[in-house]
């Protein structure tokens, strides 16, 4: 799905991201962990072609992401509020993103109705612009909008940090289900090693821009991460 080779991005001579080789595959849920400044968000922005890399190559389905814009049709992301058009109502935003993905209004409505539990009655028909929602609810809007186009690659930056406990648990189930049923490649960064070891099939541990551990998810991963973060 995504193939990264010799990727390097540095600010003022200090490497923010430095990855020799990395391949991300369909059906994988990849948990990206690491302390602040490890380069998680920078890596996301590089994959989304939002910052210029110093060296290396990122291929998405074999095409360079800088050369072709095709990846946009099957890649969706929510990193922060910068991915929301905050002067729209949530409905307008969903219709807008839906339209860009060739979905009619009715399609979007159908889609949204399947996420009613996740929305918890706090998002739709509220008569508010997105900018007037709380951060947690903005996050929900961003995640659902990202799912709208039925993407094959989904990137979420710290989704658990801003959600309430019920939504966190629902999101864990949603992610697992999507990866399994639709063979999606989902990349999630988090500081919550509990959730991340539960949801991920593969865990990448970043430190100073490099990936220092590439392990399978699950209970043993949790123990390994605790060991790592304790001595930090």
């Amino acid at each position: 799905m995504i193939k990264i080779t010799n990727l390097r991005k540095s600010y003022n001579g200090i490497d923010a991201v430095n990855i020799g080789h990395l391949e991300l595959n369909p059906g994988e849920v990849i948990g990206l962990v690491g302390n602040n400044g490890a380069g998680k968000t920078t890596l996301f922005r590089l994959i989304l072609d939002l910052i210029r890399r110093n060296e290396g190559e990122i291929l998405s389905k074999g095409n360079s992401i800088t050369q072709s814009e095709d990846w946009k049709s099957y890649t969706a992301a929510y990193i922060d509020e910068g991915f929301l058009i905050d002067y729209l109502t949530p409905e307008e935003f969903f219709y807008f993103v839906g339209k860009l993905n060739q979905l009619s209004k009715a399609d979007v409505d159908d889609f949204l109705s399947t996420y009613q539990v996740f929305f918890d009655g706090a998002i739709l028909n509220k008569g508010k612009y997105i900018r007037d929602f709380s951060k947690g609810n903005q996050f929900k809007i961003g995640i659902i909008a990202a799912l709208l186009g039925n993407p094959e690659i989904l990137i979420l930056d710290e989704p658990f940090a801003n959600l309430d406990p019920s939504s966190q648990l629902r999101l864990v189930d949603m992610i697992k289900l999507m990866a399994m049923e639709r063979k999606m490649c989902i990349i999630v960064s988090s500081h919550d090693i509990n959730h991340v070891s539960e949801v991920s099939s593969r865990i990448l541990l970043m430190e100073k821009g490099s990936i220092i551990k590439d392990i399978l998810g699950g209970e043993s991963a949790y123990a390994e991460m605790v060991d790592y973060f304790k001595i930090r």
Partner: protein
Amino acid sequence: MNLSVFLKHQWLSFWRARNANKSLAIQIILGVFYFLIFLEIAAVGIVLPFLLKEKMPNTNPISIYTSYLIYYFLIGLLARFQLQELPSLSIQPYLSQNIRRKFLLRFLNTRSLVHYINFLPLFIFIPFIIVVVAPSYGPIAAICFFIALFSLVLNNHFLNMYIKRKTINNAWFFFAVLVFIAALKGLDYFKLLSFEKASSSLFISILKYPILCLVPVGMAIFVFIVNNKYLKTHLYIEELVSENKKKESKNFTFLNRLGDIGEMIALDLKLIFRNKRPKSLVVLSAALLLYGFLFYPKYLATNNFSMLFFFALLITGIFISNYGQFLFSWQSSHFDGMMTYNTNMHQYIKAKFSLFLTVCSLQFLIASFYGLMSWRLLPIQLAAYLYSVGVNSFVTIYVSTFNYRYLDLRKSASMNFQGIGAMQWLQSLLITFGPALVFYLLDHFVGFWYAVLGVSLPGVAGLIFHESIINWLVSQFKIRKYKILEGFRER
């Protein structure tokens, strides 16, 4: 704790604002610009009394001056609705500190007074009072007269604050006052009721009986107290700034036919109408349509076609430079999103061009009514319109790829130079004076129709080859894409 600490914080926040770190050259240009504006207003204030004396030697300048004061204050109130913002947010960090409410109120009130709109009237009042009023009524009356006028300024100030706080959505109120003023002026014009006379006799009675100046002082104090009382019971950020009106989702059905590009245009339209700064810029563009009434007759009389062309350019194409100066910056808060949604750059740039084309065509159609003034305006405006959409729109998009500044949509536009760089100045010069100069040279040395043709042709060429120009613009955009993204992320 005293008030000066708070005011110092405000001072620091002004100078340390992210976008205040402009290059020295721009700061100097802005400084000169402010200085010129103040100088001009001061000059008007000083020249006015002499002018009144000279032009109308038979009438009393004081009675003329005072007869317009009622309109001055009403229009002043109107201007405040548009130009003056509530400084409510500035108290947010202090609300949770150990500071008495009374103190915060004093800070809010003092802070709000520091606004250029409160100082400008001084330039209009003081010279007149010194030159004209004091010699004929004596110093005490003059001082009382000044106190009365300044109280009315403060009265307007706190009235505006109060109204704005009470009715956050003040568009209706704005129009109500506008209609009210027009009605007064109408009654005056048809000599049904003379408010000018009433105004004049009111203010002159203050000069005759200086003690009457206590009436406006009392009014100002009254409004201040009402305002203060309201604030005291509503000292919650939520109640001071947020709007409680229900927002509705809108769908521009007529744009649906254009597919994704229509969707992008709808997005731009929503951006304009739901955010303060772009909204006021666009309202200004619409108001510029009226410029024709002011300037066309003058230059038609002297057959000065190049000046006519210059104003035609403003009237038909001002939207391009007004909205286009921040073309991408308007979306700076969600530009990361714009670059990852399922759309491509070609579509994005083309949507911007289509927006320009749509709005300018509308302005051109409306402006065509000026043809009733003189048929000559029709070819001039057509040429200006073609040049605007065929050349200026592309120039503006190109220049926009050099603008890396983040823009806060919710701040008002007046005297707001956030996001403005050297490129914007260059751009305005390039797209207005450039073609006007070409028109002038052709008109002067070859002939009127050649001038019309000379500026229309590049416009038509631009329209015909728009696809290839857009392709080139996309490649230019891609070169600077990361820099734009980086700049927009720096808030």
